[in-house]
Protein backbone atom coordinates (compact mmCIF):
# COMPACT_ATOMS: atom_id res chain seq x y z
CA UNK A 1 0.00 0.00 0.00
CA UNK A 2 1.48 3.28 -1.08
CA UNK A 3 1.54 6.46 0.96
CA UNK A 4 -0.99 8.07 -1.34
CA UNK A 5 -3.45 5.19 -0.80
CA UNK A 6 -2.97 5.45 2.93
CA UNK A 7 -3.65 9.16 2.87
CA UNK A 8 -6.79 8.70 0.77
CA UNK A 9 -8.15 5.95 3.05
CA UNK A 10 -7.50 8.13 6.06
CA UNK A 11 -9.25 11.11 4.45
CA UNK A 12 -12.25 9.09 3.26
CA UNK A 13 -12.73 6.93 6.35
CA UNK A 14 -16.37 6.53 7.46
CA UNK A 15 -17.29 9.14 10.04
CA UNK A 16 -20.40 9.03 12.20
CA UNK A 17 -22.54 12.19 11.97
CA UNK A 18 -22.95 14.36 14.99
CA UNK A 19 -25.94 13.80 17.22
CA UNK A 20 -29.12 15.35 15.86
CA UNK A 21 -27.80 15.67 12.31
CA UNK A 22 -30.75 13.76 10.81
CA UNK A 23 -33.27 15.86 12.77
CA UNK A 24 -31.63 19.08 11.67
CA UNK A 25 -31.73 18.00 8.02
CA UNK A 26 -35.41 16.99 8.27
CA UNK A 27 -36.28 20.25 10.00
CA UNK A 28 -34.50 22.22 7.32
CA UNK A 29 -36.36 20.32 4.54
CA UNK A 30 -39.68 21.04 6.25
CA UNK A 31 -38.75 24.69 6.62
CA UNK A 32 -37.75 25.00 2.95
CA UNK A 33 -40.83 23.22 1.68
CA UNK A 34 -43.10 25.50 3.74
CA UNK A 35 -41.30 28.61 2.52
CA UNK A 36 -41.16 27.62 -1.21
CA UNK A 37 -44.77 28.45 -2.19
CA UNK A 38 -44.46 31.90 -0.69
CA UNK A 39 -41.61 32.79 -3.09
CA UNK A 40 -44.03 33.08 -6.11
CA UNK A 41 -46.90 35.41 -5.29
CA UNK A 42 -50.17 34.19 -6.78
CA UNK A 43 -50.53 37.45 -8.73
CA UNK A 44 -47.43 36.67 -10.78
CA UNK A 45 -48.97 33.44 -11.97
CA UNK A 46 -51.07 35.59 -14.37
CA UNK A 47 -47.99 37.06 -16.06
CA UNK A 48 -47.41 34.19 -18.51
CA UNK A 49 -51.12 34.07 -19.30
CA UNK A 50 -51.20 37.84 -19.84
CA UNK A 51 -48.12 37.65 -22.06
CA UNK A 52 -49.68 34.87 -24.12
CA UNK A 53 -52.93 36.82 -24.43
CA UNK A 54 -51.02 39.96 -25.49
CA UNK A 55 -49.11 37.98 -28.08
CA UNK A 56 -52.32 36.46 -29.41
CA UNK A 57 -53.99 39.89 -29.53
CA UNK A 58 -50.98 41.28 -31.38
CA UNK A 59 -51.09 38.47 -33.91
CA UNK A 60 -54.82 38.94 -34.44
CA UNK A 61 -54.34 42.70 -34.91
CA UNK A 62 -51.56 42.17 -37.46
CA UNK A 63 -53.69 39.59 -39.28
CA UNK A 64 -56.70 41.93 -39.31
CA UNK A 65 -54.55 44.76 -40.62
CA UNK A 66 -53.15 42.55 -43.38
CA UNK A 67 -56.67 41.45 -44.26
CA UNK A 68 -57.91 45.06 -44.41
CA UNK A 69 -54.88 46.01 -46.50
CA UNK A 70 -55.61 43.17 -48.92
CA UNK A 71 -59.29 44.13 -49.11
CA UNK A 72 -58.31 47.74 -49.84
CA UNK A 73 -55.82 46.62 -52.50
CA UNK A 74 -58.37 44.40 -54.23
CA UNK A 75 -60.92 47.24 -54.16
CA UNK A 76 -58.31 49.61 -55.66
CA UNK A 77 -57.61 47.01 -58.36
CA UNK A 78 -61.34 46.71 -59.13
CA UNK A 79 -61.67 50.50 -59.35
CA UNK A 80 -58.58 50.70 -61.56
CA UNK A 81 -60.00 48.16 -64.02
CA UNK A 82 -63.37 49.97 -63.96
CA UNK A 83 -61.66 53.31 -64.66
CA UNK A 84 -59.72 51.82 -67.57
CA UNK A 85 -62.91 50.22 -68.91
CA UNK A 86 -64.72 53.59 -68.89
CA UNK A 87 -61.67 55.30 -70.42
CA UNK A 88 -61.51 52.67 -73.18
CA UNK A 89 -65.23 53.02 -73.87
CA UNK A 90 -65.01 56.81 -74.23
CA UNK A 91 -61.88 56.61 -76.41
CA UNK A 92 -63.79 54.13 -78.54
CA UNK A 93 -66.71 56.56 -78.77
CA UNK A 94 -64.33 59.31 -79.92
CA UNK A 95 -62.61 57.10 -82.48
CA UNK A 96 -65.94 55.91 -83.84
CA UNK A 97 -67.02 59.54 -84.13
CA UNK A 98 -63.84 60.42 -86.02
CA UNK A 99 -64.22 57.34 -88.20
CA UNK A 100 -67.86 58.17 -88.99
CA UNK A 101 -66.87 61.73 -89.91
CA UNK A 102 -64.08 60.61 -92.23
CA UNK A 103 -66.12 57.81 -93.79
CA UNK A 104 -69.66 59.11 -94.21
CA UNK A 105 -72.39 56.50 -94.84
CA UNK A 106 -72.59 55.24 -98.43
CA UNK A 107 -76.31 56.00 -98.56
CA UNK A 108 -75.48 59.71 -98.60
CA UNK A 109 -73.23 59.23 -101.65
CA UNK A 110 -75.73 57.20 -103.63
CA UNK A 111 -78.50 59.61 -102.78
CA UNK A 112 -76.64 62.53 -104.42
Amino acid sequence: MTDLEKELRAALRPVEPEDGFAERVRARIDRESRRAPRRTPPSLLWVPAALAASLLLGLVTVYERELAHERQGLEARRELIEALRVTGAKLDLAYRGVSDASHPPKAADTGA
Partner: protein
Amino acid sequence: MSHSPRIPLLALLALAALGAGPVRAADGQLALPDFASLDAKASQTVNVTLDASLIGMAARFLDPNKPEDAAVRKVINGLQGIYVRSYTFDSDFAYPQAEVDRLRRQLTAPGWQRLVQVHDARKHNDVDIYMCVEQTRVKGLAIIASEPREFTIVNLVGSVDLAQLHDLEGRFGIPKLQMQDQK
Protein backbone atom coordinates in the same frame (compact mmCIF):
# COMPACT_ATOMS: atom_id res chain seq x y z
CA MET B 1 -30.66 97.75 -45.97
CA SER B 2 -33.61 97.56 -43.61
CA HIS B 3 -35.90 96.47 -46.49
CA SER B 4 -33.67 93.67 -47.71
CA PRO B 5 -35.23 90.87 -45.53
CA ARG B 6 -38.63 91.60 -47.08
CA ILE B 7 -37.48 91.00 -50.63
CA PRO B 8 -37.31 87.20 -50.45
CA LEU B 9 -40.71 87.11 -48.74
CA LEU B 10 -42.26 89.35 -51.41
CA ALA B 11 -40.63 87.29 -54.11
CA LEU B 12 -42.02 84.10 -52.59
CA LEU B 13 -45.51 85.62 -52.30
CA ALA B 14 -45.35 86.80 -55.90
CA LEU B 15 -44.23 83.37 -57.05
CA ALA B 16 -46.99 81.72 -55.03
CA ALA B 17 -49.58 84.10 -56.50
CA LEU B 18 -48.33 83.41 -60.00
CA GLY B 19 -48.25 79.69 -59.40
CA ALA B 20 -51.62 79.40 -57.67
CA GLY B 21 -53.71 79.61 -60.85
CA PRO B 22 -52.09 77.34 -63.36
CA VAL B 23 -50.76 74.74 -60.90
CA ARG B 24 -53.71 72.35 -61.24
CA ALA B 25 -53.77 72.64 -65.01
CA ALA B 26 -50.01 72.33 -65.33
CA ASP B 27 -49.92 69.16 -63.28
CA GLY B 28 -52.58 67.59 -65.45
CA GLN B 29 -55.20 67.34 -62.71
CA LEU B 30 -58.65 68.84 -63.08
CA ALA B 31 -60.60 70.25 -60.17
CA LEU B 32 -63.63 68.00 -60.45
CA PRO B 33 -66.87 69.45 -59.10
CA ASP B 34 -68.82 67.69 -56.39
CA PHE B 35 -71.63 66.51 -58.72
CA ALA B 36 -73.84 65.72 -55.72
CA SER B 37 -76.92 66.72 -57.72
CA LEU B 38 -75.98 64.30 -60.49
CA ASP B 39 -75.45 61.50 -57.99
CA ALA B 40 -79.05 61.87 -56.89
CA LYS B 41 -80.45 61.94 -60.43
CA ALA B 42 -78.33 59.22 -62.03
CA SER B 43 -79.52 55.66 -62.36
CA GLN B 44 -75.95 54.40 -62.54
CA THR B 45 -72.79 56.03 -61.26
CA VAL B 46 -69.11 55.27 -61.59
CA ASN B 47 -66.97 57.27 -59.23
CA VAL B 48 -63.29 56.37 -59.17
CA THR B 49 -60.67 58.33 -57.28
CA LEU B 50 -57.25 56.72 -57.19
CA ASP B 51 -54.28 58.75 -56.06
CA ALA B 52 -50.67 57.63 -56.43
CA SER B 53 -50.70 55.53 -53.25
CA LEU B 54 -53.91 53.70 -54.20
CA ILE B 55 -52.59 53.10 -57.72
CA GLY B 56 -49.47 51.62 -56.14
CA MET B 57 -51.64 49.46 -53.89
CA ALA B 58 -53.70 48.25 -56.85
CA ALA B 59 -50.50 47.50 -58.77
CA ARG B 60 -49.44 45.09 -56.05
CA PHE B 61 -52.55 43.05 -56.82
CA LEU B 62 -51.78 42.79 -60.53
CA ASP B 63 -50.09 39.56 -61.49
CA PRO B 64 -47.08 40.34 -63.73
CA ASN B 65 -47.30 36.80 -65.14
CA LYS B 66 -50.75 37.44 -66.60
CA PRO B 67 -50.62 39.34 -69.91
CA GLU B 68 -53.75 41.40 -69.06
CA ASP B 69 -52.38 42.48 -65.70
CA ALA B 70 -48.96 43.18 -67.22
CA ALA B 71 -50.60 45.48 -69.78
CA VAL B 72 -52.42 47.36 -67.02
CA ARG B 73 -49.14 47.69 -65.10
CA LYS B 74 -47.57 49.32 -68.15
CA VAL B 75 -50.42 51.83 -68.45
CA ILE B 76 -50.39 52.84 -64.80
CA ASN B 77 -46.62 52.89 -64.53
CA GLY B 78 -46.33 56.64 -65.01
CA LEU B 79 -49.68 57.64 -63.53
CA GLN B 80 -50.10 59.67 -60.34
CA GLY B 81 -53.87 59.84 -60.36
CA ILE B 82 -56.96 58.34 -61.99
CA TYR B 83 -60.25 60.15 -61.62
CA VAL B 84 -63.44 59.00 -63.32
CA ARG B 85 -66.97 60.31 -62.91
CA SER B 86 -69.59 58.70 -65.07
CA TYR B 87 -73.34 59.15 -64.73
CA THR B 88 -76.06 57.29 -66.60
CA PHE B 89 -79.60 58.65 -66.58
CA ASP B 90 -83.01 57.22 -67.39
CA SER B 91 -84.01 60.30 -69.37
CA ASP B 92 -82.28 62.43 -72.00
CA PHE B 93 -80.14 65.42 -71.01
CA ALA B 94 -80.81 65.14 -67.30
CA TYR B 95 -77.44 66.67 -66.45
CA PRO B 96 -76.90 70.44 -66.24
CA GLN B 97 -74.97 71.76 -69.23
CA ALA B 98 -73.47 74.47 -66.99
CA GLU B 99 -71.45 71.82 -65.13
CA VAL B 100 -70.06 70.51 -68.40
CA ASP B 101 -69.19 74.02 -69.60
CA ARG B 102 -67.46 74.80 -66.30
CA LEU B 103 -65.28 71.74 -66.73
CA ARG B 104 -64.49 72.56 -70.34
CA ARG B 105 -63.36 76.04 -69.24
CA GLN B 106 -60.68 74.46 -67.03
CA LEU B 107 -59.26 72.86 -70.13
CA THR B 108 -58.59 76.23 -71.74
CA ALA B 109 -55.79 76.78 -69.20
CA PRO B 110 -52.23 76.82 -70.53
CA GLY B 111 -50.76 73.39 -70.97
CA TRP B 112 -53.96 71.69 -72.08
CA GLN B 113 -54.30 70.86 -75.76
CA ARG B 114 -57.34 69.43 -77.45
CA LEU B 115 -56.43 66.31 -79.40
CA VAL B 116 -59.85 65.23 -80.58
CA GLN B 117 -63.22 66.91 -80.74
CA VAL B 118 -66.14 64.85 -81.88
CA HIS B 119 -69.53 66.45 -82.27
CA ASP B 120 -72.22 64.13 -83.57
CA ALA B 121 -75.36 66.21 -83.99
CA ARG B 122 -77.38 63.22 -85.14
CA LYS B 123 -76.62 61.10 -82.08
CA HIS B 124 -76.15 64.10 -79.76
CA ASN B 125 -72.71 62.86 -78.76
CA ASP B 126 -69.88 65.20 -77.84
CA VAL B 127 -66.48 63.83 -76.97
CA ASP B 128 -63.41 65.94 -76.33
CA ILE B 129 -60.00 64.51 -75.60
CA TYR B 130 -57.40 66.82 -74.11
CA MET B 131 -53.79 66.30 -73.19
CA CYS B 132 -51.75 68.33 -70.76
CA VAL B 133 -48.30 68.70 -72.26
CA GLU B 134 -45.30 70.45 -70.78
CA GLN B 135 -42.20 70.63 -72.96
CA THR B 136 -43.09 67.47 -74.93
CA ARG B 137 -43.86 65.64 -71.68
CA VAL B 138 -47.41 64.39 -71.31
CA LYS B 139 -48.67 65.22 -67.83
CA GLY B 140 -52.30 64.31 -68.09
CA LEU B 141 -55.25 63.26 -70.16
CA ALA B 142 -58.84 64.42 -69.92
CA ILE B 143 -61.88 63.05 -71.68
CA ILE B 144 -65.24 64.76 -71.48
CA ALA B 145 -68.01 62.77 -73.09
CA SER B 146 -71.60 63.88 -73.09
CA GLU B 147 -74.26 61.67 -74.61
CA PRO B 148 -78.02 62.05 -74.26
CA ARG B 149 -78.19 59.74 -71.26
CA GLU B 150 -74.61 59.62 -70.11
CA PHE B 151 -72.07 62.12 -68.92
CA THR B 152 -68.46 61.05 -68.31
CA ILE B 153 -65.26 62.72 -67.24
CA VAL B 154 -61.96 60.88 -67.23
CA ASN B 155 -58.82 62.49 -65.88
CA LEU B 156 -55.59 60.54 -65.94
CA VAL B 157 -52.78 62.40 -64.22
CA GLY B 158 -49.18 61.66 -65.13
CA SER B 159 -47.47 60.17 -68.10
CA VAL B 160 -50.15 58.74 -70.38
CA ASP B 161 -49.35 56.59 -73.37
CA LEU B 162 -52.34 56.12 -75.66
CA ALA B 163 -50.59 53.21 -77.39
CA GLN B 164 -50.40 51.38 -74.05
CA LEU B 165 -54.09 52.11 -73.45
CA HIS B 166 -54.65 50.63 -76.89
CA ASP B 167 -52.90 47.44 -75.72
CA LEU B 168 -55.71 46.99 -73.19
CA GLU B 169 -58.42 46.76 -75.83
CA GLY B 170 -60.52 43.64 -75.69
CA ARG B 171 -59.47 42.97 -72.08
CA PHE B 172 -61.41 43.59 -68.85
CA GLY B 173 -64.44 44.62 -70.92
CA ILE B 174 -62.48 47.43 -72.59
CA PRO B 175 -63.85 47.74 -76.12
CA LYS B 176 -61.65 47.14 -79.12
CA LEU B 177 -60.60 50.56 -80.37
CA GLN B 178 -60.33 51.24 -84.08
CA MET B 179 -56.96 52.98 -83.97
CA GLN B 180 -55.41 50.61 -86.52
CA ASP B 181 -58.14 51.51 -89.01
CA GLN B 182 -57.29 55.18 -88.68
CA LYS B 183 -53.72 54.71 -89.83
